[in-house]
Structure formats: structure tokens, C-alpha cells
């Protein structure tokens, strides 16, 4: 059985910056548990020597030359912004420092 708890779901939602409501916490706790129970069997298919594949087609050394390309105008850059000021994106105050 899965060890997914509402506490865990709230913690994950916080990491993912989603303010879940309580009914979602309950629903996701159950569904996440079921999904994780179902997918957990993959660990039986592999061992520590199995290599990982992060990219389906192996490529290496793909570069761009260090040549300046046109940027967006400030107006274009800010065109989709919910709020702006002084040529910048405006956001509410920040709680804590990184």
C-alpha cells in the first residue's frame, strides 16, 4: 500500500506552488496513492547496473555560435505581462529571500 498522506500532497503542492483546496487534497491523496502503487513495480524490472536513458536519441555537442541575434523589443517582451511598470514585470512583494 502506498504511503501517500494528505500531508505529503500538501507538501508537494507547496513545492509546485499550487494552492490546492481540501477536496483536491483528499482526491489527489487517493489517486496519487493508486498511481504510485501501480507504477512502483518498475523497480523490480531494473537493477543498479541498468543504464539510464534521459534522451531518446543520443546526441552530443549541439552548440550555437556566440553571435548576437535580435532580441524582442521591451514592448513585445512585456506584451503578455499581467502587470508592468518602468519597463519591468511587476509582481507582488516577495516573502523571503532566496
Amino acid at each position, binding site marked *: 500500500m502506498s504511503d501517500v498522506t494528505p500531508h505529503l500532497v500538501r507538501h508537494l503542492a507547496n513545492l509546485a506552488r499550487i494552492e490546492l483546496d481540501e477536496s483536491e487534497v483528499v482526491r489527489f491523496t487517493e489517486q496519487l496513492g493508486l498511481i504510485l502503487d501501480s507504477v512502483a513495480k518498475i523497480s523490480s524490472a531494473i537493477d543498479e547496473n541498468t543504464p539510464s536513458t534521459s534522451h531518446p536519441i543520443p546526441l552530443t555537442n549541439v552548440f550555437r555560435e556566440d553571435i548576437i541575434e535580435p532580441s524582442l523589443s521591451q514592448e513585445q517582451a512585456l506584451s503578455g505581462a499581467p502587470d508592468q511598470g518602468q519597463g519591468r514585470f511587476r509582481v*507582488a512583494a516577495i516573502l523571503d529571500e532566496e
Partner: protein
Amino acid sequence: MSELIRKNASELVEMLAKGEVSSVEITQAHIDQISKVGDAVHSFLHLTTENALAVAKEVDRRRASGESLPALAGVPIAVKDNLTTTDAPTTAGSKILEGWIAPYDATVVTRLRQEMMPILGKTNLDEFAMGSSTEFSAYGPSKNPWDLTRIPGGSGGGSSSVVSSFQSPLAIGSDTGGSIRFPGAVTGTVGIKPTYGAVSRYGLIALASSLDQIGPVARSVLDAALLQDVIGGYDPRDSTSLKDSLGSMVEAAKSGSLKGKKVGVIKQLSGAGFQQGVQNRFAEALKLITDAGAEIVEVDCPSFEYAIDAYYLILPAEASSNLAKFDSVRFGMRVTPEGNPTIERVMAATREAGFGPEVKRRIILGTYALSAGSFDKFYGAALKVRTLIQRDFDAAFANADVLVSPTAPTTAFKFGEKVADPLAMYLNDIATIPANLAGIPGISVPIGLADEDQLPVGIQFLAPAHKDAALYEVGAALEGILEGIWGKRMMDFAPKLEGN
């Protein structure tokens, strides 16, 4: 119904070349069909028919003045709404992006514009392409033209329904775990997921970057080939784009043949447990393939048992990160809670209100799969399973030129049937997911109707990476054989849609 809209793209190309029809006439015919059936099928999220007509007019002008034109110039197309366009909103089916207009075109869209193809509009999808039915679109589902009470497949149900309801001869889709092929199978159309990197992802709103691939949606294999030749090819803006040419898909489709081919039936996907009608059509198709001179062999891919599990870890993990940029700062929706909230709360409230349930579910799942305590057991393990699946394919392709399976376990299901059960929904992708995990190309070609519900069934061919041409070759061959037997095209079996 105008005869023009029932023509395949390849036929329209010929008619245009011969001067039998203008691009404006073709485009207008499709716009008329959109006004007739658009509301019922709900394929489009945004229409750009004015711009389409302007392009059509320009194509006609150039043709009249004897200028040379690209192959598909003047043939209309629809684009899935997870590709950025500067002349229409791009929402990816999500509320969080409602009304957002990108300041740049996706590479694929740029190529369509260079080809001078009139773009009719942007097609519906499950939110951020997460789903198999379009029921997770924030703007309501698209309908299956074969039966409006059924799903058109997903996530690209907008593109599959637009083509199968003759609102456009061609469409662009994106396939992360089957989002082109599954909708193709359930709407009787052709859908291709090219080799990973064959079509640039620049401008595709990423779901899972290592799985996503853009591809053609069409009503014939040749039409799909025409489109892949336009949208494919190296793009320096996508680091995973393939530098070497994969050759001409059109030539492959035209030379379509099964003779002498070794066709591998995947033991794990040979139809056991699938809907009976699906199994029957698949068995018949195998017989036709043999009759056409191919040799059927069975291949064993034992790791496929874990494919869906690995997929539902890798996809949410990558998606949880890809979707982090939707934070209300630079674009899209912003929800400001009561009081004097900090940016952290604004972000969390926006994402709560802007994302639908499936998106949130997968973000939470992906966040868990990547988090420190569970990385090795889940995401890390899934990347290893991916290696095993690639090895299975390598071994299979050592014994076969192409592999086959039914594209999906069932025909189109009814709205609401699986929406509350994520695990049941995820099983639709069982046959299509392995190709995404391995980066190899796959095609779904219609092979008739299931006996029990008279709904379309698709067969899937898979080829080794970079061998997309092989899919067009065998796909076109089988399509030709079936149309010979039927004496008509697959879509001619479809019931007529009532217009408004």
C-alpha cells in the same frame, strides 16, 4: 457538401497545379464547412480564416503570374493550439493561457507560412496535451465526427476531428504518448509521430520534452508524407533536432510496398485483452500484409510491461518542471487573493485556478517522482526502464523491418466513461507509449470498422529511429490494398454530419 472538401491534399495539389481550382475556392469551401459543422464538432479554439484567405489569394496571384510555388502552397491546414502563432492566441487548451498571443511563431508554423499554406485556425486539445479524449480541455471537448457522443481521441482530438469532419484536409498534431496516433485510430484518419528530433519542437508548448514530437494528421498516408516533408528537417533552434535528412517521405509513400518486408508482431501488443472488433480487424490486416508478400514474425518485448508505468513517471516529472513557468509573472493569467498577498501566494492561487484537475494531478505526481526521497525509486527507475525498452526495440528490429500492433485497445469511447478514472484513461496509450519512450517513429493507419460498434480501428506500424520512410512505405501499401477491397476510402464509411 462541396466535393472540394472531400479531396485529399495530394489531389488538391494536382487540381491547383492544373488550374482547375483556386486556393481561394478551396479555402472558402473549408471555411464554409467550418461554419456548418464547427459548432457541433468543436474542433477549433481560434479561427484565423481571414488570414487564411489572404494567403490563398496571394498563392492564386503568384500562380497566375507564373511564379513557382512550394508543393503544398494553397492547401489549407489547421494547427494544434499548443504551437505558438503570432496571429492568434495560443492556449494549449488551458485557462492559464487564455488570450495569450505569443510574440513568435513556432518553427513548424513558420514552415507552413513559408510553404504558403492557409492556416484556418488552432485546434482543441486536452489541457497541455494531457489526456486521451479532449475532455480535459478547459474549453470543452471536441466530438468524434463518427458519433458525436464519443471522444475524438486525445490529446489531439481537435486535429483528428477537424480532418475527419472535412473542415481541413490536413492538421498538425503533437504526440507525447500517442496524442496523434490514438486520435487518428478512433477517427479513421492517418497520424504519424516522426522520429524524435525529425520535426523541430521550437514553439511547441512542452508537455514532456523528451517524449514530445510534432507530426502530421491527414486522411491519407501520402498526404501525411507531403506534410512531413514540409515541417520536418533540421532546426538550429532545437538542440534535439536531427541534422541528417531522413529522405523524402513522399517518395516512400508513392513507392509503397510490403513485398519482402519482415513485419514483427509484438507479442505483448498482439491484441490480447483488446476489444474484439479491434482484434478482428487487426488479424485481417495481418493476413492482407502477408498476402502482399511480407513475412510476419513474432517479436518479444518483455519490458513493455513496464512502459506505461515508466511513461507516467517521466511525463509528469518533466511536465512538472516545464509547467513551472506558468507563474503569472511574464504572461498568462494572474489571480490575486484577498488581502495583501505575497508573490508566492499569487503564484499558488493562479496555478490553482488556472490549471485543470489532470494537470494538477500530474504536476503533483511529477513533483513527487523527482523529489529527493523518491527520485531513485520512481523517476530514476523510469529512466532505466526506458533503456530496457530501447533494448527490446533494438532486438525486435534485428528481426523485423517494421513492427505492428493495433493502435489502441478500443474504438472511441463515450464521453465521461473514463474521465474519473485516471488509470483506465492511461491504458488507452498502452500501444503507443513505447515509441515515445524510445524516440522511434510510428504511424496509425485506418483498417476498417469494429464489428460491434461500427467505429474506426487503426493499425500501428513502428520503425527504427530515422526510418520514418519505412512507415510511409508500408502504411501507403496497406492503405492501397484496403481501399482496393473497399472500393472507397475509409472516410466514405463515415455518417454524414448534420450541418446547422
